[in-house]
């Protein structure tokens, strides 16, 4: 049998496969270094805020220039009435993140839209109009997280959050984590979300 033309030969495609894979991987490494520098908490890019953002009011508005919704960090509005240092805020958000993982929240909910689809997305949970208003929000969230069965919010689906044994301390951490997450710039996801009234809205 005659050898195939060069573009159909095994040798050509082996070299192509190696080159393409190596090239794409190098590009990915480069972009990863850049992305990491951008998404560090509190970096100058202001996409992922410092943990002390929990001391401020967080809003979510349409940005005409970018053509997408983005978080707006406002005046001081301390969580649970206490101004946290960056280290304290980080510790509180860390407790919340650990709790979210240990309680396996992601297999009912989504975070940034990733996870399971049995319960609502948590990306903007801190801003959800379901909490009524700014004054009642923290209390309602604490009550719900520590006793979700009694304080069930099923919206007519019958789906309840089970009692996962969340302590009050852990619930405060989860709320801090949710507040911090709501301040992350997620390129306009979710679209068209209207936050609960805040700051005299």
């Amino acid at each position, binding site marked *: 049998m005659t050898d195939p033309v060069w573009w159909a030969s095994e040798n050509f495609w082996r070299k192509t496969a190696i080159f393409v894979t190596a090239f794409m991987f190098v590009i990915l490494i480069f972009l990863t270094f850049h992305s990491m520098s951008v998404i560090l*908490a509190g970096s100058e890019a202001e996409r992922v805020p410092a943990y002390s953002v929990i001391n401020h009011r967080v809003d979510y508005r349409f940005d005409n220039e970018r053509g997408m919704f983005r978080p707006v960090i406002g005046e001081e509005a301390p969580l649970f009435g206490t101004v946290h240092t960056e280290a304290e805020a980080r510790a509180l958000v860390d407790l919340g993140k650990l709790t979210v993982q240990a*309680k396996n929240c992601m297999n009912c909910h989504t975070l940034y*839209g990733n996870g399971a689809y049995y319960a609502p997305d948590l*990306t903007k949970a801190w801003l959800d109009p379901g909490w009524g208003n700014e004054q009642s929000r923290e209390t309602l969230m604490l009550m719900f997280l520590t006793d979700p*069965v009694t304080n069930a919010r099923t919206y007519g689906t019958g789906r309840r959050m089970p009692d996962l044994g969340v302590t009050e301390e852990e619930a405060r951490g989860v709320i801090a984590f949710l507040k911090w997450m709501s301040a992350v710039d997620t390129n306009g996801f979710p679209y068209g979300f209207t936050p609960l009234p805040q700051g005299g809205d």
Partner: protein
Amino acid sequence: MAISAEIPLTGIDAASPGESTLSAGQKLALKYFVAAMVLFAAQTVFGLLAGLQFIYPDFLFGVLDFNVNRMVHLNAMIVWMLYGFMGSIYWLVEDEAGTELVGPKLANINFWVLTAAVTVVVLVYLIVQVGDGTRASIWLINEGREYIEAPRWADIGIVVCTSVFFCNIAATFMKGRWSGISGTLVLDLIALAGLYLAGMFYTTNLSVDQYWWWWVVHLWVEATWEVLVGCIMAWGLMKTLGARRRIVTTWLYIEVALMFGSGILGLGHHYFWIGTPEYWLGLGGFFSALEPIPLVAMVVHAVYDAGTHGFKSNNHPALAWLIAHAFGNFLGAGVWGFMQTLPQINLYTHGTQWAASHGHLAFFGAYATINIAFIYIALQHWRGNVWMSGGLPDGGWKWKWSLGLQCVGVMGMTVAMLIAGYEQAFVERAAGGSTWGAFFDAQTRPWFVQAMQWRMVFGVVTAAGMAILFWDLLTIGRDETRPAKQVPDPEAEPAAAG
């Protein structure tokens, strides 16, 4: 690394009819396949429980909640895929290397250690379920990150076990001979094992967390796993059809170039909404839109090979599942992925049942199918290399019905969830602005509720297909006395025309 496709194979699997002469690697492969089927059953059972909870939310509430059922459903699926891949590789390694497995005893211990660890992890998932908000919970109970929930101690165990597996496979090829398939396979296994490390850390920053989490999930499922099944497929087509080695190897390289060429930066379609820079919208959208191309190549390749051999295979069930793999991979991973991969659409579909629809068809089409095909190839030889072509004693109704029911069942679930996803994209996302109220509004509309009911019906159809599959695997070829149909030698070049 010396890669040569010119060395002829020895006939390790040329057992006489009625006689079971399996090599050490093949015996080990059977263990992996049995464990894979047990996990397949677990995946299906827990999937049915989770599906029922959408319809009856009080079902097992507080006992086995949705998050537990769904976690076991997903994890059983991932682990049975991996067991299927490892079994398939153990099955082909000695034949492809032309020598015996280097460390069969170590490999056997490794199998039992891995299986014991998987059992402990699942029991902890089911009994302990959740922990308190400490690092100890992540180390001992559940990492709480979708797909890679296994606690950290198990992560370390998985790395150790897969390293032992990798060393065994690589050493066997080094002792024997290399080929295009084995070279690609070994390099892919290095990437597969290495990528798992990217998921083994904890950070407070969710954006950094999800960035690396996708390195594992995407670069496994949409890159290294695809190349792995490309290698397995190439070997499978040679064995079932007698497809020529030069052809399948060239196609494999083309697929690798296209798969990694699109899939590595296609990772960017997971970086649209996690806090990462805006350039990922363009990069991720563009490269992930190219991801179906290698899957088209795989379909063309499989159908071309099957067609040129007139569909005359030595193992009809295996070939049918290989063809199901080619189309299922293209439809589930390719078409269903493409549907929502552009950021303009994904903004509304992300995090809805649309993704579940894609996930079900893609995992079944791309991976479950090819593992089942390999189990049929293995069974044929376990029975003594018996006849498994046309004209089976019972007309082969069991494998045909199990294939048909599972394909119809999974496709039915996929379409049901797609309808639910469409409804969510409109009602919850576009009109409702993604609030919790909008989420639940979408969940209570008839199109969503009916879709969940239809998903359940087709889930039961899939389970029925699986039950018949198990029945067939236990009985096919048991009383067969005819030897397997002979297929052409994959190493032989056709005579020059004219």
